[in-house]
């Protein structure tokens, strides 16, 4: 769990490689493709990661079981959609087929956070991703991007202030609408 909380790429790769085949097998047995399996598995990984980040996941939790449950529910939701109603689902009985409300809350939060991220342009993403996700220091980022450390510091500040200004504008609009 500590590796997940630190956004450690090696931990994420290991989890992916270890648990994707099980999800892939389930999706393939239920009318899906490998690409479908990737989509639901990656979403499940994101939910697991956010849960670990927000201290809502116990260290003793079984990440494989969690990933399978979330990915399975996502795929079943997809199959239940109008386009797939005629298909017969081959259930995997290892785990009860239920939706966890807390997970649904996390999924809504993920949608909201992606909406925030969408407001950033490529330049900002390039710098902020390295600093906040990869946890590189300013000197390393400056070195990688061939610019001065002070420039990176300024770019980071400006990009975060753009997000803040955007959120303030939204809050203002919501305030006006409520009046």
């Amino acid at each position, binding site marked *: 769990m500590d590796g997940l909380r630190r*956004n450690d*790429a090696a931990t*994420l*790769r290991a989890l*992916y*490689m270890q648990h*994707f085949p099980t999800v892939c097998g389930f999706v393939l047995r239920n009318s899906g493709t*490998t690409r479908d399996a*990737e989509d639901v598995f*990656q979403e499940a*990984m*994101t939910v697991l*990661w*956010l849960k670990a*980040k927000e201290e809502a996941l116990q260290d003793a939790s079984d990440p494989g079981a969690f990933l399978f449950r979330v990915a399975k529910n996502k795929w079943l939701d997809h199959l239940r959609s109008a386009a797939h109603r005629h298909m017969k689902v081959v259930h995997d009985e290892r785990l009860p087929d239920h939706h966890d409300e807390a997970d649904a809350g996390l999924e809504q939060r*993920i949608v909201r*956070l*992606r909406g*925030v*991220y969408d407001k*950033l342009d490529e*330049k900002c*993403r*390039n710098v*902020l*991703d390295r600093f*906040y*996700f*990869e946890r590189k220091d300013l000197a390393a980022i400056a070195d990688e*991007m*061939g*610019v*001065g450390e*002070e*420039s990176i*510091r*300024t*770019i980071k*500040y*400006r990009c*975060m*202030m753009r*997000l*803040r200004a955007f*959120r*303030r504008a939204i*809050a203002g609009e919501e305030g006006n609408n409520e009046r």
Partner: protein
Amino acid sequence: MNKGALDRDRFEAIEAYVLGTMPQAERARFEQELAASPALRAELELQREHIRAVELGGMDRLLKEIGHEGRVSERRSTPWTAYLKYAAAVALLLGVAVWAFMRPTAHERIFAAHYTADPGLPVAMGASDDHAFHDAMVAYKLGDLAEARNAWTALLHSDPQNDTLRYYIASAALAMGDANAAIPAFGELADGHSAFTAKARWYLLLAYVRAGEVAKAKGVALDDDPVYGERARAIKAEL
């Protein structure tokens, strides 16, 4: 949410708290302040949310990369690998043919050997900073040359004698490979007497080389310059 501006020091203090990099003593003080200030708590929550959004963006990118790596390694283990050597041979032949048609001229090789784009000016924050100029400088440093060039060109309309703008517009043009646009702008600066004169002559020389204008390149007065003289003489000897 706090309605006012958030200065950089304050932003970085909140950031350090969220990332857990704030020293212990400072953290205790910060927490006291947090307990007393609803505005600071709101600012903290907002910044935590923004950092989480950026992390999520990184997470999505990394997961796609891992998925892609998995697909690539799967493809490598299929019988198609047997055909890879033939594909490689075809690619090599095509590559040689393309190189034969597209290989750089002697002038382009000299240009490439000597040209390094101007690194730009430091981008620092300050109350009197010209934000439009510095935003363009940020774009320039990050390789968004067209964006920088367009922004500076727009600023030049209201300040046509600004040597800094003229120099960096020309620098962006040359970095984009547009030597013909860079030449007149560097030429005007090279004829003047400003902080940019020597640098403008150096890049004018390189722009002439890039454009294949050998006689004009040789005519750029830079041979005795203490910074660029030696390199200018070396280029002229190669031409």
